[in-house]
């Protein structure tokens, strides 16, 4: 009975390793895609106004001096957060594809980090807009209230991802306890 259980456990470990490899490939592709898209958007934004600026006698330096905040706020920070949310997942899948054990403290931490990044990605556009408006004297209390109370303006995809990752972290925590019990029994 025990040997049968152990065989099943080993088979399950093997399947986890295989599916982790698939997940690792997909996450890596998404990671590279996000980096490329962020760089492409930055280059596009830098080059796009250059044409009109040059036509009116300006240069790319004028653009950088005039609107660097918009570039950082709309492209660079969301891009970096997106990359930062995928990197821990790549490390997690790499780790799991090696040892086949998902229930470890390190994996839980990686999931939590990724969840925090996704959460920041969900709320960053709204917070940055309100901060920007406040600094420029266009503070809108109604939209801030609708964000705080109803979460209006938050990205639903990243919010969902954040919540799901936090749930998975809790699941891994419970699994860690069971894994510890299993190791101690053996």
């Amino acid at each position, binding site marked *: 009975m025990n040997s049968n*259980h152990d065989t*099943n*456990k080993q088979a*399950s*470990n093997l*399947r*986890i390793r295989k*599916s*982790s490899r*698939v*997940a690792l490939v*997909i996450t890596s592709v998404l990671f590279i895609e996000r980096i490329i898209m962020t760089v492409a958007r930055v280059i596009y934004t830098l080059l796009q106004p250059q044409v009109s600026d040059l036509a009116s006698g300006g240069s790319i330096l004028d653009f950088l001096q005039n609107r660097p905040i918009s570039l950082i706020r709309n492209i660079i920070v969301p891009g970096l957060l997106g990359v930062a949310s995928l990197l821990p997942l790549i490390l997690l899948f790499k780790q799991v594809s090696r040892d086949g054990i*998902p*229930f470890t403290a390190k994996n839980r931490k990686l999931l939590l980090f990724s969840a925090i990044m996704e959460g920041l990605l969900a709320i960053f556009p709204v917070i940055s807009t309100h901060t920007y408006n406040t600094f420029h004297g266009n503070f809108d209390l109604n939209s801030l209230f609708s964000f705080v109370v109803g979460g209006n303006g938050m990205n*639903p995809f990243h*919010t*969902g991802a954040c*919540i*799901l990752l*936090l*749930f*998975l972290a*809790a*699941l891994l*925590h*419970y*699994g860690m*306890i*069971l*894994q*510890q*019990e*299993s190791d101690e*029994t053996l």
Partner: protein
Amino acid sequence: MQQETITKPAAIRSLRIWSIIVCCFYGLSTLHSLNYTFSWFSSLDLLQPEHEPISSLGYVTIISTITYGLTAIPMFLLALLFLQLARNGQPFRQINVKRVRILAVIFFAVAVIPSLGFALYMLIAGDEPLIILVYGIGCIDTTQIVKGLLMLFIAQILHYGTMLQLESDETL
């Protein structure tokens, strides 16, 4: 051992709390998907006899709306799954593994069904097979496929956890 008896219920409690939150999120997402689909259909004046034939662009819009409506199904099932988890606080059960696998299949179906519909429409319209193939593959929703693969991965983890849970129950 004393520490463990404190930690395990705490972990289950945390799991149940997160299950409630995820359940609420997916419940709201289901309502949002249904609301979007129904509001679109009510605005579409299809029932009037004098309406013009649906254009290619109109068909694409219908397909995207159906996709949106179809995503309500796995969302609703996920909400039910998490509601069940919030109730009993036992994630590592064989029934949950099966449910998550079924969800993965539904996600794959949601990704492919609109594409098949679009290909069928083009076939009836008499388009070239190569164009049908290219547009049909282009209409496959890759996000849903990634979600399906994620579900399969979670199912594997749950399956492994089920074995650990069995060991733990037998030890006690």
